[in-house]
């Protein structure tokens, strides 16, 4: 696992050579100048080129011309044209913190943004490690859970429970969950996870081609103050069933790995 930090103008400059505008999981805005102080695009790109050169990431030699280092090449190609992206968004008040993982060819690359605007790029050994990083980022419970604790319902019913739970109608929310098949203990835990989660967020598996997210498998993840994690997802389309399931670091990681491996088999 190795990490480098890059200024957004460095990434913008490198992306322009691959004719990339959007980065899946980020869009385009984070890589563009945001204030007048950043100057016009020409200045922004020139700054990016200068930073890359200074860091030894953009090198010019008389025989080979101007070239990015191998490290930058693989990072840019992975970000510019991934086959798979994991988008982890952790709730923070009304806002969010974000960790993305981009996979292409032999590279698994994580990306976060710091408060000073710098991007942190982390190279992971494989999908297992990268998924664990996302699951850790989202605050899932570390303690293993017993499999099979779940409620199979639908979007309408779970939306109604969510409304009750978040509007303080605790008893009604718990009663609705029991009616959907949860035990009294699980129903209370789910109500707490929805109403007052210690951590909450989303993990979305995005299958991509031509730098476009073609298919999404999102999971909402809620963990209570008692370190009990519940995930909510649609195994098929939104019109199909919706499931809420007890989870943990290992259970959620396993779910993601099995989902991706299955998708590879089915789409092969």
């Amino acid at each position: 696992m190795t990490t480098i930090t890059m200024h957004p103008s460095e990434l913008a400059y490198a992306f322009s050579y691959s004719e990339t505008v959007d980065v899946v999981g980020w869009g385009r805005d984070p890589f563009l100048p945001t204030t007048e102080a950043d100057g016009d695009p020409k200045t922004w790109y020139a700054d990016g080129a200068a930073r890359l050169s200074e860091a030894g990431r953009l090198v010019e030699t008389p025989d080979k011309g101007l070239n990015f280092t191998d490290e930058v090449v693989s990072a840019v190609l992975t970000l510019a044209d991934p086959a798979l992206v994991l988008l982890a968004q952790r709730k923070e008040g009304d806002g969010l913190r974000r960790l993305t993982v981009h996979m292409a060819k032999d590279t698994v690359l994580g990306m976060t943004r710091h408060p000073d605007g710098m991007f942190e790029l982390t190279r992971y050994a494989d999908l297992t490690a990268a998924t664990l990083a996302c699951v850790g980022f989202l605050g899932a419970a570390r303690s293993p859970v017993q499999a099979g604790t779940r409620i199979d319902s639908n979007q309408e019913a779970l939306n109604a429970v969510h409304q009750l739970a978040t509007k303080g109608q605790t008893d009604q929310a718990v009663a609705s969950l029991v009616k959907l098949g949860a035990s009294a203990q699980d129903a209370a835990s789910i109500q707490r996870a929805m109403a007052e989660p210690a951590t909450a967020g989303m993990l979305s598996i995005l299958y991509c081609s031509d730098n476009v997210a073609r298919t999404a498998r999102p999971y909402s993840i809620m963990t209570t103050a008692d370190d009990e994690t519940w995930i909510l997802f649609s195994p098929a389309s939104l019109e199909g069933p919706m499931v809420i399931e007890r989870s943990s670091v290992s259970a959620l990681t396993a779910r993601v790995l099995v989902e991706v491996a299955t998708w590879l088999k089915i789409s092969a």
Partner: protein
Amino acid sequence: MTSNIETIRNAEAQIPQLRDQLRALQAEARANDGVVDDEEQAEINQVESLINTTQQLITEKLRTWGANKTAYEKLRTKLATDLGKVEANEDAAFGQDKRAISVAVSKVDQAASVEDYATALSRTQELERLVDLFLKQVENERLNGLTTEELMEISLADENIDEVFTEEYMEALMTIPLKGEGTPELRDVIKKIEKGLSGANRTEVLTELAEIVGEPPTVADLDADYARFLILCKQRDAIGKEGEKGDIDPVDEKLHPDFVGSREQLMFGKVLGDALGIHEVFATLLSPTGGLVGPGNMLIGSVASPHLSPDNPVALHGTVHDAAGYLDSFHDEGPGYNYRGSEIEAMVTSAIELLPQSWENEILPFTGQLSGIGYWIVEAGDEYIEARFDEGLVALEQALESARDGASDQIDEIVSAIEDAKQELSDKADALRSDMEDAAAEAAQDLQDLVDEAQAEMLEASDALEDGFEKVSETVVETIENVSDAVGSFGEGVGEKLDAIANFIWN
């Protein structure tokens, strides 16, 4: 010796004679005094060596002959349909070309009749070129007769366009030789073609071009490609105008004095040319600024050397992306990037290894049901099909429960093993240290080695989990309207699904 079978058979016929000669020499040497002297042995060795060399040559030539025969037969079979089309063409304007093809066929048959497949193959390859040229000219004639509206509705893509947007193609493009690249001669010819060719000037300029990039292609090949280029220009202008794609800009040579005829431009032309079935030089002129990628185009004067080396994978990606964009905008063509799931299979291998061996059997019944249905949902949007797809996905999700449990147990082991091992090491070392400090150090080292070995496999996963926890405090808190806004570009239904699941968190 050639690979002609007659010569090979003649050589084969000499082997028994040489063996007879060898036997006679050996008998004669022993007959005199029962001892083979140096002079006699040298003579025997010479004949033996001759036999071995001849046999080796025969084997090698037979292999070449066989390979030529196979290649000839394959190509000849492939050409049968196209030769039928040539035969069926009754346009008098192509009479001379038909006769040339007929003569070429006779020459091929002549060589094949005497089993000289090296010659037959070479003549068939030439025949293939003639047939391709003939059919292209006939097709150009037909296309020239179409109205602009008709031209906008048809595909002018090469039949092998799908092979262009693949990883294999991009790999090969990196090192492909492009004749004339970067030379002033090619730059001058491209500028002449850009001005338009007709009459004697057309032949003269295309002859100049053939001298730089040929032969092949011959002047006639280039002439057919030029004719197709003019048709493609007509389609480009019509589709571009209808879609309000803007004008095609010429290269600003003040800003980019070395771009015309450069490797960057020709690589773009090669991608486009292979997709549309014309020579790269003409393809560059369909979109003359194609291949100019990166902010370097705007940064003249600010950055010393703004053009990235065209062989750099990042620039190459940009060039191919540029060509795909042009094809889509101006010819309604291009399959996009043809990446397959297997591309990342290696990176998922570790994940698959965590699964129980039975997992593939568990998904097997669903594979046929689900693959391909997604396509029909996109194409038809049929609610019934979508419902069937949902059923399959739900059943699959449930069937994989044991696979998830197995993987989950292993991940638990991986995550907890590091801490357990460290604790064990610490306890053991403490106990030993109290008895005997030196022995403790040695034992601790042995244990550490064992732990290091175990950690090598597990540390990355364990560290990644901790890294994820730590990253929370290091990341910026962002405000966005919708979760899907962060995704960038996404396909149909993706945004809706993301926002529906996000409602459980942010509402």
